């Protein structure tokens, strides 16, 4: 995927964040807190768990539907993280060869299970992160983190990162175009060229950082980022959102829902005296 496509997709997330649904109107803190709780409860499951991860998918999916986020966009973006994740877990099946399950000729080893578990977890985590950005907006998330106690220095870094991502990427694109204009179309840039392109980009970034700092000083910056009064508050809707999703997450974390669903026919069979003999 090219740099311009990546930028376009980030802008799409921005557009989605500007929608006006009940989910969008919720105070960002509620969404951030529930998402954090989601991550903790999902990631704290045992390393061989696969089936128990499945019910967790309800959270990003339902939020996406409520917030009008197209699932195709979500899957496409989440798939981008796959190569990294696969690289992280690829050696598990080779290292951990304890057999956990035998399905006919196929024996499922611990390594396979943990690899699958890693892939599932990362897909869930990435897609939940994406949904959170799409239904909240990056700046609202930053502000929520600030109101939840994140240090200002870190917060400002995050805000600036997002704000200047576009400016920096535009500059990088212009430089790449300028390079392409002056060399054979099929020749890929060599390391030496990349070195000078990156060096140049770094110098431009430093220059810009200096100018931004001057602009901030000119308007009275003294090390503290001022904040306008927040427009949302933590009201009944937010409490309801937290309580409902909190209950759901506790349930799927403590209970083994897939197994109990699987046991249900047996249970019913036992009670009804051989409904499913």
């Amino acid at each position, binding site marked *: 995927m090219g740099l311009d496509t990546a930028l376009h997709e980030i802008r799409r997330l921005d557009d989605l964040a500007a929608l006006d649904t009940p989910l969008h109107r919720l105070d960002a803190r509620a969404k951030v807190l529930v998402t954090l709780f989601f991550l903790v409860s999902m990631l704290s499951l045992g390393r061989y768990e696969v089936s128990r991860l499945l019910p967790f998918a309800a959270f990003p999916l339902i939020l996406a539907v409520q917030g009008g986020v197209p699932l195709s966009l979500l899957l496409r973006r989440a798939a981008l993280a796959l190569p990294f994740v696969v690289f992280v877990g690829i050696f598990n099946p080779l290292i951990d060869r304890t057999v956990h399950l035998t399905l006919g000729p196929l024996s499922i080893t611990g390594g396979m299970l943990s690899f699958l578990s890693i892939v599932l977890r990362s897909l869930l985590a990435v897609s939940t992160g994406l949904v959170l950005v799409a239904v909240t907006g990056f700046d609202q998330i*930053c502000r929520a983190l600030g109101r939840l106690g994140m240090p200002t220095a870190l917060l400002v870094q995050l*805000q600036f990162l997002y*704000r200047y991502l576009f400016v920096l990427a535009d500059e990088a694109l212009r430089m790449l175009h300028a390079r392409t204009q002056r060399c054979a179309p099929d020749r890929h840039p060599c390391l030496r060229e990349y070195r000078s392109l990156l060096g140049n980009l770094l110098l431009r970034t430093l220059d810009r950082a200096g100018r931004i700092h001057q602009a901030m000083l000119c308007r*009275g910056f003294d090390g503290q980022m*001022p904040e*306008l009064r927040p427009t949302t508050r933590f009201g009944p809707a937010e409490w309801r959102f937290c309580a409902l999703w909190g209950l759901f997450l506790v349930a799927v974390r403590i209970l083994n829902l897939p197994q109990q669903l699987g046991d249900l026919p047996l249970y019913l069979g036992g009670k009804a005296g051989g409904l499913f003999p």
Partner: protein
Amino acid sequence: MSHHIVELKGLSFHYPDGTPALDNINLTIHHGESVGLVGANGAGKSTLLQHLCGVHVPQTGRVRVGDVPVVPGTLREVRRTVGLVFQDPDDQLFMPTVAEDVAFGPLNIGLPPEEAALRVDEALAQVDALHLKHRPPHRLSGGEKRAVAIATVLACSPDILVMDEPSANLDPRSRRLLINLLRGFEHTKILATHDLDMVLDLCERTVVLHKGRVMADGPTAQIFADYALLSACALEPPLCMQGCAVCNAAR
């Protein structure tokens, strides 16, 4: 005693690498004046502007804004008096939304949030950009960014507006809107620009810089009529004073 006088006396400046940028500049600008600062690339326009709001502190000579000399201890006060609009609006619009960006200055002065919010609406209304209030700056067009950048400065209620290339990168219509907007301001204005037609429209006085020195300082019409001077300073008369391109070509 006038508060809004800008006074530069014997100002010289070298960049850290030794490149001379300003050489013995003497200039006084009075309250309510609108001054065009023109010169070729590298003439020292931007460096001079940066001295007015304390981005650079004078190495030789002195700069006074109102009754306050520009020295490290007075920068806060100087920056409240002088509002600098940067050449690239992307440098000036650094907050996540337009409203927050415009509120940045007022909040830093210490205004309560309610008051700052009022200032935001006022400043945005002045530049006709109230509808952009909740947009992120990186999604605005060039003209919109420029308007908002001006609003960010207006919201601090400066007495002196200093602008670096305000009409650069604007399409003709946005440029005309900007000129009309600036004409409506009663601030003391200092515009550094290559757009001599805009200077002719807005500034009764023009200062010509060349290689860091003041080559001429006087009524705009008189200076722009001195073709020899303009040519010596690597400038050309404004397009509207060059006559008809078609008729001149036919002659």
